[in-house]
């Protein structure tokens, strides 16, 4: 076969003994996520199809809001994801900074665009739900304003890490912004309690019985898990790209891209 300047044999990264830090290695992360991706997409599509079916065909029309309430099946999951992904991003950025863990910083970068996308989705669907129910697309109440700030925090983080040439310095600067901005997440979450907002209170509480019909709740939770699977799939795909971009000069990437067709990637 073709002569190679680099070895084209790699030990199977998944056959090594597992430790807590096993997947902190970009090589192993790349192999593991490559195997996981088709399953994540399958789970996302299945749960999404089930959630939409129950949301549109099984859950009844709401007595007061009519069918406009069906926006809830993506609005609430998107809002949850926007906050959760921000905390994940800040957490991985902090770990990458504190322990000098490259992969953690790459994960933080990979989460940001998907987090911003879900934040936009929460704001957009909220506006289209607000118009028929409140009579307005937008109000500057605490919940809506703090969610908009979340979108700007994502943009700020992405702009900052893109503006600094040295990747590790960019990671550190980004981590600082992400961690400071994390203060906004509890503000969003508790805003409907702390202030008198036009936005309604929490949809689901851990301590009280659900206030909505169980089919509605089922559809919303299915969509939430579908969004989870989606977020894992897209974030892993983007992390794999970042890993390859940064580790392009290493032997393992060399071996990866020179494997013969038919071999597992």
């Amino acid at each position, binding site marked *: 076969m073709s002569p190679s300047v680099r070895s084209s044999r790699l030990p199977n990264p998944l056959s090594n003994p597992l430790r807590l830090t096993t997947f902190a290695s970009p090589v192993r992360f790349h192999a593991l996520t490559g195997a996981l991706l088709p399953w994540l997409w399958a789970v996302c599509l299945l749960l999404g199809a089930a959630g939409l079916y129950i949301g549109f065909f099984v859950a009844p029309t709401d007595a007061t809001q009519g*069918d406009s309430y069906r926006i809830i099946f993506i609005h609430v999951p998107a809002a949850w994801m926007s906050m959760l992904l921000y905390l994940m991003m800040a957490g991985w950025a902090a770990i990458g900074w504190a322990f000098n863990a490259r992969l953690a910083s790459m994960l933080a970068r990979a989460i940001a665009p998907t987090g911003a996308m879900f934040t936009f989705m929460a704001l*957009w669907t909220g506006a289209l739900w607000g118009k028929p129910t409140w009579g307005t697309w937008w109000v500057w109440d605490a919940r809506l304003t703090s969610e908009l700030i979340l979108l700007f925090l994502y943009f700020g983080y992405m702009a900052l890490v893109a503006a600094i040439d040295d990747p590790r310095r960019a990671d550190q600067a980004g981590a600082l912004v992400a961690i400071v901005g994390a203060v906004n997440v509890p503000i969003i979450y508790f805003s409907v309690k702390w202030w008198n907002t036009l936005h309604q209170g929490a949809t689901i509480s851990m301590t009280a019985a659900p206030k909505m019909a169980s089919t509605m709740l089922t559809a919303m939770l299915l969509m939430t898990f579908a969004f989870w699977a989606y977020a894992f799939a897209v974030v892993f795909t*983007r992390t794999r*790209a970042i890993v*390859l971009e940064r580790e*392009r000069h290493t032997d393992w990437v060399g071996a990866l891209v020179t494997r013969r067709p038919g071999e597992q990637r």
Partner: protein
Amino acid sequence: MNWSSAGEFFAMGGYGVYVWGSYGVAAAAMLIDAAYAAARQRRALADARREIDDEREEAVR
């Protein structure tokens, strides 16, 4: 079953614009995000491969 016809389904009890405007834009946003991530992955692989090929050519020379 909530709907007796496709027309009724798309009308969403008069809220069609709001409901489908939400779902349509949400689906588009998810597709765009996923497509950009996949394109970036393909580009990263292609760039790495090109770099190896260049190295090989130099090694042959």
